[in-house]
């Protein structure tokens, strides 16, 4: 039993609570796209109320009231163009015996153990027909704050953005205009199932013919667009391309025979908008790009209907919000607002890529430099396999002496600050093109590792061939190798500092700490001799070494000579063949303190370029399009855009309704 507070026009201003008994609830699901309720009035009248998408309601209307239907349809289109989300409401009077018989079927279906969903759907179909249209509602659905900006920044970064939505085509196009994905200069290819030709065939009702006809239509259109597209590539300043496709057409376009054409066409377009897509189709489109085009795909969504899409993509991002946590639970990353995607990709994603490349390259480099030193030694041992370094040195090299600094680099290295990363989104393309971990980069690091290992081995061994200092005594194998190992540890740690873009105090601590730990270790190791040692090779080595001036002279020479090549390469590369991020670093090297200012600074910055842009737009002569994107403006821009364009803004639908309800003047049907 529910109570509805009604106020009727006859009793002006007075409200009363009327009770209605709810007999059945036919739940909403995305295949039916509607929900219904059977209720009994106080006076015993049985009514079935239904609310749903306009297409499904219209399919089930009865034959009367053709005028109302037509008028409502016109209104619906107007609502859609204004960017509102529409719903239709309809009702049907039920005869008691009809209801009883149906109710039995309903109860059976509801309590069935197998295929409950399907049976409920079937039972619902039995009663949901012969509706009488009540009217339509329209909802304004504001975009989140910062979305158009975010999308524009991401497309500057070379990321192609597709919109997959369950809304109508008009609504979807409007959203795309609001987000700057579509604009009037783009050449739009529209594949829609709402054309007259298709409606005509649908009215005839023959399912197979509809399917065949639609497939033909879709094929024809795809072919036509594919033929048209190349002419826009010839001129570099030509208009960009956009594709708008409808869910029904998509169903046919995703079939194996047509999907290649669809893929080719859509990859040539800068934006693709798919409307009226079901969750399954969202996943299918994502897989089409993922597998067919072999590009990295990212899906972002906030509702349960986005879950399949999120899981189909390489990276799935869920927005935690009012629609619940299903998207978040299915996703790889969860963010709170859409605009954080910009941060996630351009700042953290980019930094992650750079850090990962550095860490991996450095690992290979340091081990290569270390191991090749032993390799050169084998030439002098008669290839007997004698190791150059003591066992402990080798084991602890990667664990203690060179481990921590690279971890610090992997955590903290930033080539440019976060605000600059967002200001220059084109830098993201460096990652897309994999510029920091390709064969050339690896080869260069490997060459320098070889060069350094040669320096380590030969400089140390050739310079220790005569007396160690003025007392005439000679060095042995283990003394030479300790000297070489000290040089290796110092050089490899200093090389790390050379490759950092930003050096925090943790870098100093870890690099200095690693070198100090090496010395502490060797002091302890060579100062202790116990009964359980396998050999005493290392006893007192470092103390003797450090008492000679040879040690210090060599320790100054070898790291400098080894790093000379790298330094030269870095200098030449930065000067003559700079990467983009290096140029950005240079141009902003003097705004040292902006990284630490709080976020308020940044939002202020965001407004001014937009205002500047809007000023520019308003000065250009522009054709005003039907799709104005007003309804999806983010808060703060509405009045601004309106005044700029000098346009009269039609009152919003909810505004009208609010005013109407205050006057309580609505007429009964």
């Amino acid at each position, binding site marked *: 039993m529910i109570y509805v507070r009604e106020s009727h026009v006859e009793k002006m201003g007075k409200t009363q609570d009327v009770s209605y008994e709810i007999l059945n609830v036919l739940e909403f699901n995305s295949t039916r796209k509607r929900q219904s309720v059977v209720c009994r009035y106080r006076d015993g009248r049985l009514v079935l109320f239904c609310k749903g998408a306009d297409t499904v309601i219209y399919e089930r209307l009865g034959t009367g009231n053709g005028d109302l239907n037509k008028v409502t349809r016109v209104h619906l289109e107007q609502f859609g163009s204004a960017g509102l989300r529409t719903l239709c409401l309809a009702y049907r009077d039920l005869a008691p015996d009809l209801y009883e018989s149906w109710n039995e079927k309903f109860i059976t279906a509801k309590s069935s153990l197998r295929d409950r969903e399907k049976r409920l759907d079937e039972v619902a179909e039995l009663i949901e027909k012969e509706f009488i249209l009540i009217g339509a509602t329209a909802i304004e659905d504001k975009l989140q704050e910062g979305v158009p900006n975010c999308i524009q920044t991401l497309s500057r970064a070379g990321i192609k953005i597709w919109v997959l939505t369950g809304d109508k085509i008009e609504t979807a196009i409007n959203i795309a205009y609001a987000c700057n994905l579509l604009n009037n200069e783009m050449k739009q290819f529209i594949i829609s199932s709402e054309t007259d030709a298709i409606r005509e065939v649908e009215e005839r009702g023959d399912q197979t013919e509809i399917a065949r006809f639609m497939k033909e239509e879709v094929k024809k259109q795809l072919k036509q667009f594919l033929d048209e597209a190349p002419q826009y590539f010839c001129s570099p300043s030509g208009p960009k391309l956009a594709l708008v496709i409808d869910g029904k057409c998509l169903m046919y376009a995703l079939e194996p025979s047509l999907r290649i054409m669809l893929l080719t066409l859509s990859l040539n377009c800068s934006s693709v908008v798919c409307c009226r897509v079901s969750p399954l189709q969202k996943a299918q489109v994502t897989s089409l790009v993922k597998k067919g085009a072999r590009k990295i795909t990212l899906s972002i969504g906030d509702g349960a209907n986005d879950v399949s899409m999120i899981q189909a993509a390489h990276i799935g991002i869920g927005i935690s919000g009012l629609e619940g946590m299903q998207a978040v639970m299915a996703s790889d990353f969860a963010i709170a607002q859409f605009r954080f995607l910009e941060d996630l990709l351009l700042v953290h994603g980019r930094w992650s890529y750079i850090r990962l490349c550095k860490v991996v390259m450095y690992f290979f480099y340091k081990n290569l430099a270390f191991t090749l030193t032993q390799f050169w030694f084998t030439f002098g041992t008669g290839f007997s396999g004698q190791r150059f370094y003591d066992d402990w040195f080798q084991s602890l090299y990667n664990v203690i002496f060179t481990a921590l600094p690279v971890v610090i680099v992997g955590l903290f290295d*930033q080539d440019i600050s976060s605000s600059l990363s967002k200001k220059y989104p084109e830098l993201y393309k460096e990652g897309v093109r994999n510029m920091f971990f390709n064969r050339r980069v690896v080869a260069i690091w490997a060459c320098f590792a070889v060069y350094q290992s040669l320096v380590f081995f030969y400089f140390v061994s050739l310079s220790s061939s005569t007396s160690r200092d003025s007392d005439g005594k000679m060095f042995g194998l283990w003394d030479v190798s300790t000297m070489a190992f000290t040089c290796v540890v110092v050089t490899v740690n200093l090389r790390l500092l050379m490759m950092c873009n930003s050096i925090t105090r943790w870098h100093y601590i870890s690099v200095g700490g690693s070198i100090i730990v090496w010395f502490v270790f060797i002091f302890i190791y060579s100062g202790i001799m116990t009964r359980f040692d396998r050999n005493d090779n290392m006893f007192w080595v470092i103390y003797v070494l450090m008492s000679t001036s040879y040690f210090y002279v060599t320790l100054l020479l070898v790291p400098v000579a080894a790093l000379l090549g790298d330094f030269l390469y870095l200098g030449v590369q930065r000067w003559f063949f700079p990467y983009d991020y290096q140029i950005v670093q240079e141009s902003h090297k003097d705004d040292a303190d902006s990284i630490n200012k709080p976020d308020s600074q940044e939002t202020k910055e965001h407004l001014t370029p937009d205002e500047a842009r809007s000023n520019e737009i308003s000065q250009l002569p522009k054709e005003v399009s039907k799709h104005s994107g007003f309804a999806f403006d983010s808060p703060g821009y509405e009045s601004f855009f309106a005044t700029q364009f000098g346009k009269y803004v039609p009152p919003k639908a909810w505004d009208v309704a*609010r005013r109407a309800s205050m006057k309580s003047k609505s007429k009964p049907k």
Partner: protein
Amino acid sequence: MDTNGATTSSAAGGGSTSKSSSKKHSRKPVYSRFTQQELPACKPILTPGLVIATFTIIGIIFIPLGLVSLSASEKVVEIVDRYDESCVPSDYSNDKLKFIQNPSINKSCVRTLTVPKLMKSPVFIYYQLDNYYQNHRRYVKSRSDKQLRSVSDEKSTKDCSPEDKTVDGPIVPCGLVAWSLFNDTYGFSVNSKTIEVNKHDIAWKSDKEHKFGSNVYPKNFQSGGLIGGAKLNSSVPLSKQDDLMVWMRTAALPTFRKLYGKIEQDLQANEKIQVVIQNNYNTYSFSGKKKLVLSTTSWIGGKNDFLGIAYIIVGGLCLFLAVCFILLYVIKPRPLGDPSYLSWNRSPAGHPN
């Protein structure tokens, strides 16, 4: 039908608005510069100025250092004399192996060395061996440091085989390293006056005091059929066997020299020194070379130009590179941070990919 009332259409404005601001207790994590990646950092940029300055500084520091090292090395006077070919009597010149392995043949040999420049005391005497792989893996392994240290570990000869024990008990010191002890001897005289050679204090102090025990005596040493080198006096403890200690510090490369003794008097220039060599050691079976070296030392060690030359080359190279960079900077300058060099500003507007 009029359903005005209860549910006004849409005023809720649906959609997803930001929710954080109205919550009472925020779930935002505690701010710390460490976790927010806002640590103060030094962001070094390798500007041309920095590159040139670095090269210049390195050049300026290294070249004098190199000159100093080189001059120190040049001051060292060294006499190197290869004697293994010429110390074989002519009748055995085709069968050196037979010569060296026959204990009854007299192995003395007299050589004359001329002192090129004044050699101030102490003058160090080394023997240098070539093509002798003291760094061979099996050789380096074949010793027992435990045994050398104390008598109680006499029996730990595990790695020493085959030179580990005889029927009479373990060999002390065991292993190939000790077994192959160098046994050529040298006697020096100038103008028929013997020069005294100080053979004390030629081993590392740490070896003497810790690695070789003062109560460990040689036992069963070189008693097998195959003699590898010198015999040891079994009444002298290991910590006083300097030659053994010097020999057992295995060398790094196949060409090495080891300290034999010291001459504590000056050797005048152009003096002729007579050396009586006992050519006992067998390097003929593997075409090794034996050389006698007399050398003075300097603060940096013996006669080794390598460090000096390396410093000079590196310093010179750095200065040369600094000059090159200055020239290049003048010829082909690139203004720092110029946005027109950004790749998306440089190439003509092409079709976006």
